[in-house]
């Protein structure tokens, strides 16, 4: 029983966070009325529930520990400690619409590889291509009980100052959705936060482990999850 106000809260949080993101272009201060007044695209999704496209390019360099030592690389390494990826059913009529199991499988694989549980994760970057996805995927990935993401959000748990900041970057709603590049953008945020380089949106709490879960956007059922940390 998720209300329009619950969805609006995702949009408001993420677009506000994006005001502090030098890379993004959709930072904004919005109210429940702004979202309620935007037109319905396909009920119950409104224009402001949908992340707009953006153009971008980004690059990561990965290296083995021995390479880092040998080359005396000075920049702080952020370790890939776990990952998982999974697909669902391409056929619409065969899909699990309430919770995509493939997202759950990808998330659990990543956490298991890292030897961590959901409670060990300090902050999350998760797909908010459509506002409901943030709530749905937080539950599917195991960060909230089924149905409780909306109340956790309302209590401020997912705010930048909260116990489990979600989309401190501003997410896709705040920065743009980038199709194939969307997931990598989440990874760059994990790196920045873990290094203390996230500038004005640096999380006030100390962070050691970050989690990102990306979805490639319609029509796909492709999900990938990654766990990164300051320690291997």
């Amino acid at each position, binding site marked *: 029983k998720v209300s329009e106000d619950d969805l609006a809260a995702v949009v408001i949080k993420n677009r506000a966070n994006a005001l502090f993101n030098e890379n993004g272009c959709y930072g904004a201060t919005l109210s429940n009325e702004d979202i309620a007044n935007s037109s319905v695209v396909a009920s119950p999704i409104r224009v402001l529930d949908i992340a707009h496209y953006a153009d971008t390019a980004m690059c990561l360099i990965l290296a083995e520990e021995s390479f880092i030592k040998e080359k005396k690389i000075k920049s702080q390494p952020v370790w890939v400690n776990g990952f998982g*990826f999974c697909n669902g*059913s391409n056929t619409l009529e065969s899909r699990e619409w309430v919770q995509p199991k*493939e997202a759950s499988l990808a998330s659990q694989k990543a956490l298991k590889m890292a030897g961590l549980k959901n409670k060990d994760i300090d902050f999350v970057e998760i797909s908010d291509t459509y506002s409901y996805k943030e709530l749905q995927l937080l539950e599917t990935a195991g960060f909230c009980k089924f149905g409780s993401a909306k109340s956790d959000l309302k209590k401020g748990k997912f705010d930048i100052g909260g116990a489990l900041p979600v989309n401190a970057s501003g997410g896709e709603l705040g920065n743009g959705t980038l199709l194939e590049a969307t997931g990598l953008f989440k990874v760059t945020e994990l790196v920045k936060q873990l290094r203390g380089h996230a500038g004005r949106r640096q999380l006030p709490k100390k962070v050691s482990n970050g989690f990102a879960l990306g979805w490639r956007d319609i*029509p*796909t059922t492709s999900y990938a999850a990654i766990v990164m940390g300051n320690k291997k």
Partner: protein
Amino acid sequence: MKGKAAIVSAGITKFVRRAKETPKELAWYAAKMALDNAGLSLDEVDAVIHGTAPDAFDGVHQKAEYLSDASGAFNKPYIRCYVGGGTGVMAPIYGWYYVASGIFDTVLVVCEEKMSSCRPHPQAAFLTIFDHTTERPLGPNLLWIFALEMNRYMQVNKIKLEDIAMVSVKNKSNAKNHPSALLGSEVTLKDIMESEVLAWPVHRLMVSPISDGAAAIIITNEEKAKKITDKPVWIQGAGWCLDTAFWTGRDLCYPQYVEYAAKMAYKMAGIKNPAKEISIAEPYDPFAYKELHHLEGLQLAPKGKAAELLMDGHFDKNGNLPSSPSGGLLGVGNPIAAAGMMKVCELFWQLRHEASGRQVPGNPKRGVAQAWGDLMQVGTVIVTGVDKP
């Protein structure tokens, strides 16, 4: 090499000009054959790699998503591989590194292409690969740019057109006994030279046919391979290299990127003298001249000399180094992503003495399969053999 990975089964559909089967059915047939050949159920597959080329052919955006269920990827880790024509060898390479690194034990690799859905002709889909500002105003198409490369290759190395035509003769003859072959037949040099010129110096019978088809293999680690077959075909080396998309600024007479990819694979396989240590070659032959061009890049012929060796019978099925005993793309067909996989499958069958009608004589120990594509820029190379690395 960290872990060992082996190909334990293979499956391939017929390659035809226009399949009645849907793209999903093609992928399914190949995947099912590979599973049955290994005696495995889908539950025992940890991940699926799908190699498939431009969405424009099958006519479905995000084609790999469309083919995911047919490829066995429901609720499984699934990755699409796409490097143009290089896909058919790159997809097995993906499978190799996921198994060799220990991430997965058993990977199903499926390659599919249904080009015939692209109307009025699949060639049209290639018109959009060229840069809109610097290249499209010239009106290039693939036949045109490969004719450029072929002409450069011939001129620099002083190669006769008739010698290049013999590649078509060899491959179409070899393909007579390939179960999937579209154009296996005895053609003569005269037939090739009299076929119409498409873009000089390319004659029609020097070009592989547009095709629909799919092929699949299963790759497992050492422990699982032992349980599945007593004749695993080990992946001994893998290499890949991408040259610049600015083909206008490169000398096209020699595929440097194939050399780099081949050397990467040979180094991994511990091969010092490939011309002597490789028993079978399956170089990518979408055009007749390409087989020769690639044999040189693969270090299996000195630069500019592949045609001489061909005319000496060196690359015949009964020669010193059989090249394209499968019949190649020229003889079997060219469904873009599945074509390279067809060559990987051929090595699998040849090394296990299962290539009935096409079997090279003797006891072949290792083979190299190579694929190529994009804007004449990618080389993907895999070395497989009967000996565990």
